[in-house]
C-alpha cells in the first residue's frame, strides 16, 4: 500500500467530515471515527516494513519524500491509535457544544498532519506538515473561546518562533549541503565542524523544544493544555508534544548520528550532558510546580512537562538502555496521559465543566469505571510495578546509576516521588472523600467515554506485565540507529548489570494478593456504611463540609512556593545585574507577555543569521 494514500485519507477525510457534518450529524460522527480507525488499521499493516516514496516534486523543486521504517511506524501508529481513541471520546463530550463540524475537522487535521510529519522523509515536507499542525492546533486550543484564545495565542507565538528557528536551520543546511533529505544529510553532517553542528542543534532545539515543552521553553503548555477541550488535551499531551520528541530523536539519531552526537563537546559541556541536564531540570521543576496546582488539567499539563523530561533525559543520555527507556516512556506516556486527560474530561463532562480540584470529591461512588481508569492511569504515571511506566523508569534509573550519573538518577527518582504526591492529590480530590450533595444524582460517564478509558487502562496493565511487546519494536529501532539492542524477552530484560522479570513480580503479587484476599474474605464479613456514618468526634457529619481538599499539601506548599518563585526571580535578577542594559528586557520575559519572549528569540536568531552571513563562522 502506498504511504501517500494514508495521508490522502487523513487529509481528505478531515475535509469530508466537515461537509458531511452539514448533511447529518450522525454520519459525520461515524465518518470521523471511521477515518481515524482506518488510518490506525492501515498503519498497523505497515509493521516491520520499510518503504520510501517521492510523492510530489513541484514544490520549489524539492522532492517531497515519504518514508516509513520501524522508527516512524512506532510513532505514527501510537499517534493514530491515541487519535482515534480521543475521537471516540469526543463523540459525547463535544455533542453539547457548538461548532462540532469544525472541531472534528480540526481534530482529524491535527492527526493527519502529525502522521505527515512522522512519515515525511525530508526536512521540507517535515516543515510543511509542521506548520499545518501548528496552525490547526492553535485553532483547536482556542475552540472554547474566552481564556482559551489567550492560551492559543500564547501557543502560536511561541510555535511560530520555533518554526522560524527551524526554517533558518533548514535553509542553512540546504545552503551548506544542497539537500534536505534525512538519509543524505546524515552522512554529510558527519564531517561538519562541531561548531556548525551545534548551531544546527540550537536552531532545531528551539523549535522542537518549544513543541516538546522543555524547561524553560514550556510556558505555552499549561494554559494550552488546560484550556483545550479534554479529548484534544489527550491528543495534545499524549502525542502532539511527542512530535518534538520525534524530532529530537530524528535529529540526534538519524540526521546527526549517535557517534557524532556523543562526541559533541567534552565532559560537562558536551551536548549530551547539557541536554540530559535540561531534561533533569525539566523533570524536577515542573513536578514541584504541579504540586501547587488546583486545576486538574493544569496539574496534568505540568505533569506532562515533567514526564517529557524523562523522555528527553533518556534520549539524550545516549546509552542503548536510556534511549530504549526514552522511547518506551514516550509510548507509555501517550497511553496514560491520554487516559488521565480523558478521565478528567469525563468528570468535567458530567459536572458541567468543573475541573477545580477544590470543589469536587467522592465521585468514585458515581463514576466507578472512570475512577478505575484514573487509578490505573496514575499508577502508570507513578510507575507502580506491573504498570507500563515502571519498566521504562526502571530502565532509565538503572542505566544512569550503572553509568555513574547519580545526580541525573536522583533527579529522575525524586521526580517520581513528586509524581506520587500530585497524582494522589488529583485522584483524591476528584474521586475520594465526601460526595457533595449536588452531585448525588450524577450519572456514569457515557459508553463512548468509558470505552477508550477501559481500553487504555487495559493497555497500561498489559504493557506493564508484558513489556517485551513494545521493547521488541524499540529494539529494532535501536539497531537502526546503530545502538546495541537490549536482550529482552516477553517478560522483561536480562543483562549483567540488572535483570527485571515481570513474570516473577506478577506471580508474586498476584498470589500474595489472592492469599490476603482469601484471609480477608474468610474473616467476618464487614457491613457497608455510607459516607455520613463517619467519625466526626461524636458529632454528625456536616454535609458538603467534610472533605479535606483545599490546599492538600499545605505545609509543603508554604515551604516550597517562595523558593520556586525566588529561584526564577533570582536567576533573572542576577542576569539583569550583569547585563544591565538587557536586564529590563529579559525580566519582561517572565511578566507573562509572550510577545517579548518571541521578539527576544527572533532577535537572537537574526543575530545568528547575521553573523553567519557576515563572517561565516561555522
Amino acid at each position, binding site marked *: 500500500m502506498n504511504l501517500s494514500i494514508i495521508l490522502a485519507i487523513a487529509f481528505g477525510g478531515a475535509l469530508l467530515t466537515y461537509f458531511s457534518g452539514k448533511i447529518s450529524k450522525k454520519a459525520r460522527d461515524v465518518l470521523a471515527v471511521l477515518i481515524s480507525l482506518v488510518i490506525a488499521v492501515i498503519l498497523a499493516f505497515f509493521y516491520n516494513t520499510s518503504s520510501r516514496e517521492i510523492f510530489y516534486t513541484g514544490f520549489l523543486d524539492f522532492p517531497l519524500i515519504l518514508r516509513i521504517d520501524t522508527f516512524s511506524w512506532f510513532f505514527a501508529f501510537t499517534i493514530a491509535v491515541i487519535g482515534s481513541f480521543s475521537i471516540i471520546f469526543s463523540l459525547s463530550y463535544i455533542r453539547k457544544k457548538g461548532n462540532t463540524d469544525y472541531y472534528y475537522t480540526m481534530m482529524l487535521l491535527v492527526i493527519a498532519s502529525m502522521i505527515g510529519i512522522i512519515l515525511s522523509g525530508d526536512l521540507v515536507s517535515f516543515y510543511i506538515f509542521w506548520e499545518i499542525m501548528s496552525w490547526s492546533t492553535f485553532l483547536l486550543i482556542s475552540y472554547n473561546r474566552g481564556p482559551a484564545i489567550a492560551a492559543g495565542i500564547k501557543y502560536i507565538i511561541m510555535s511560530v518562533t520555533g518554526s522560524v528557528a527551524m526554517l533558518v536551520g533548514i535553509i542553512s543546511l540546504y545552503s551548506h549541503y544542497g539537500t534536505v533529505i534525512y538519509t543524505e544529510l546524515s552522512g554529510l553532517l558527519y564531517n561538519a565542524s562541531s561548531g556548525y553542528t551545534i548551531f544546527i542543534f540550537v536552531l532545531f532545539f528551539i523549535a522542537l523544544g518549544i513543541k516538546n515543552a522543555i524547561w524553560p521553553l514550556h510556558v505555552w503548555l499549561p494554559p494550552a493544555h488546560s484550556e483545550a477541550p479534554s479529548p484534544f488535551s489527550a491528543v495534545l499531551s499524549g502525542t502532539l508534544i511527542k512530535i518534538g520528541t520525534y524530532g529530537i530523536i530524528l535529529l540526534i539519531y538519524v540526521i546527526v548520528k549517535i557517534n557524532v552526537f556523543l562526541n559533541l563537546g567534552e565532559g560537562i559541556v558536551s551536548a549530551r550532558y547539557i541536554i540530559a541536564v535540561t531534561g533533569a531540570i525539566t523533570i524536577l521543576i515542573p513536578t514541584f510546580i504541579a504540586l501547587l496546582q488546583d486545576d486538574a488539567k493544569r496539574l496534568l499539563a505540568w505533569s506532562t512537562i515533567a514526564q517529557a523530561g524523562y523522555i528527553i533525559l533518556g534520549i539524550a543520555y545516549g546509552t542503548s538502555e536510556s534511549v530504549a527507556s526514552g522511547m518506551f516512556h514516550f509510548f507509555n506516556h501517550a497511553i496514560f496521559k491520554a487516559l488521565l486527560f480523558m478521565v478528567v474530561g469525563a468528570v468535567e463532562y458530567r459536572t458541567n465543566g468543573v475541573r477545580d480540584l*477544590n470543589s469536587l470529591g467522592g465521585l468514585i461512588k458515581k463514576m466507578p469505571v472512570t475512577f478505575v481508569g484514573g487509578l490505573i492511569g496514575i499508577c502508570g504515571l507513578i510507575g507502580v510495578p506491573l504498570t507500563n511506566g515502571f519498566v521504562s523508569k526502571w530502565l532509565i534509573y538503572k542505566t544512569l546509576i550503572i553509568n555513574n550519573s547519580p545526580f541525573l538518577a536522583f533527579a529522575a527518582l525524586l521526580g517520581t516521588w513528586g509524581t506520587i504526591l500530585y497524582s494522589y492529590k488529583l485522584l483524591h480530590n476528584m474521586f475520594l472523600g465526601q460526595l457533595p450533595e449536588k452531585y448525588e444524582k450524577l450519572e456514569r460517564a457515557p459508553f463512548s467515554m468509558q470505552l477508550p478509558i477501559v481500553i487504555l487502562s487495559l493497555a497500561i496493565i498489559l504493557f506493564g506485565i508484558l513489556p517485551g511487546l513494545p521493547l521488541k519494536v524499540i529494539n529494532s529501532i535501536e539497531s537502526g540507529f546503530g545502538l546495541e539492542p537490549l536482550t529482552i524477552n516477553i517478560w522483561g530484560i536480562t543483562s549483567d548489570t540488572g535483570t527485571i522479570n515481570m513474570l516473577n513480580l506478577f506471580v508474586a503479587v498476584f498470589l500474595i494478593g489472592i492469599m490476603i484476599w482469601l484471609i480477608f474474605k474468610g474473616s467476618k464479613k464487614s457491613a457497608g456504611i455510607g459516607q455520613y456514618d463517619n467519625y466526626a*468526634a461524636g458529632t454528625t457529619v456536616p454535609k458538603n463540609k467534610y472533605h479535606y481538599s483545599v490546599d492538600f499539601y499545605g*505545609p509543603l506548599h508554604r515551604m516550597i512556593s517562595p523558593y520556586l518563585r525566588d529561584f526564577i526571580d533570582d536567576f533573572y535578577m542576577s542576569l539583569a545585574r550583569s547585563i544591565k542594559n538587557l536586564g529590563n528586557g529579559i525580566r519582561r520575559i517572565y511578566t507573562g507577555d509572550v510577545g517579548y519572549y518571541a521578539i527576544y528569540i527572533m532577535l537572537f536568531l537574526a543575530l545568528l543569521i547575521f553573523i553567519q552571513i557576515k563572517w561565516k563562522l561555522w
Partner: protein
Amino acid sequence: MRELELYFGPQHLGMVGNFSITLNVEGDRIVKATANPGFLHRGFEKLMEQRTWIQNFPLVCRINVVEPDHMELMYAMAVEKLAGIEVPERARFIRSIYLELARIGSHLFGLWAYANMLGFDTVANWAMYHRDLVLDLFEELTGGRVYHIYIWPGGVRRDFPEGFKDRIINTLHTIGSCVPDYDNTFFNNRVFYKRAKNIGKITCEEAKRMGAVGQVLRATGMKQDIRKTEPYAAYDQVDWEIPVRTDGDAYSRIWVVRDEMIESVHMIFKLLDKMPEGEVYNKIPNPFKWKIPDKDAYVRCESSRGELGLYLVSNGGDKPYRAHFRTPSYNHGLTILEKALENESIADVGNIMISLYITAPEIDR
C-alpha cells in the same frame, strides 16, 4: 471551593475534658475557631440554691474536678465573709499548704495533658506518677483522693496527722529530685521548643483586653497574682516570687507553670517552718438551723489556672440565694482560645488549648 469543618472534641484523644471546638479549616490552617462549651453543664449554681450552707460543700468541690480545693476555699471564704467567722492562724497555714499541694497536683496534671498532647508519653507517665504521690498525701489527710471537702467555714476539718509534715517533705523531695530529669527530657528538649515556641501567641495588651488571668497573663509579662495583691490564707506570711515570662506563647506558658510548681514547693517548705501550733477550727452554729444575714460578697483567690472568684448572695435564709463562680477558664476557653487559634495549624489545636490551661467543667459549671 469546598469548606471544611472539623470538630476537635468532644470525643477526641487530644481533648482534655468534655469540650468541643469547631474549626473552619483551609488546608491545614484554621480560618475560624468556635468554642462549643456546655457538655458538662449541670446548673451547679441553681442546685446550690436548694441546699443549705453546709450541704453545699460536697457540691462546690465538684465544679472543677482537676482542682476541687480552690473551689472549697472560695465557698468557705465567702461564707466566712458573709457570716463574719474568723479563721485560726494554724488553719490559715494548713490551708495554704493544702492549696499549694493542690496547685502542684493540678500543674502535674496539666503537664501530663500537655506532654500527652505532644505525644511525649514518657514525661506524661512520670508527671502522672508524681501527681499520684501528691494525691496520696491528700488521701491520708482527708480520706479522698480527688474530692476532699477539707476546708470548712472557720478553718479546716482536722489537723495534720502525726508525721504528716515529714511525709509532705519526703514527697516534695522525691518530686523535686526529678526536676532536672523533666528539664532535660521535656522543658529543654529541642523538639519541644520548636513545637511550642511562637504558638498561640498573645500580647500583654490582648491578654488584658480579653480578660486573661493566671499563667496566660503572667506569660505575657504581667506580674499579677492574687496571692500577692489580695493575700488570703497565709500567703502574706512568707516570701515568695511571682514567676513571669514575656513572650506570651505556649512555650512561655508551660515554663511559667514549671516555675510556679517549683515556687510552690519552696513556699510549702517555708510555710511548714513557720507553722504555728493551735486550734484549726472555729466552731460554727448548728448547720441545720444556720441562717446568714442578708448580704452579698465577692471573694477571689488564685487557683492554679488564675483568678477564681465567687459572688455569693444571701437573703437571710438557710440557703444561698445566688452563687456565681467566676472561673479562670471561662475567658480563656471562650474568648482567648478562639482568638489564639486563628491562623494556626490543625496540629496545634490541642497544643494551644492545653497551654491555655482550659478545663471544661470550670466553664460549664
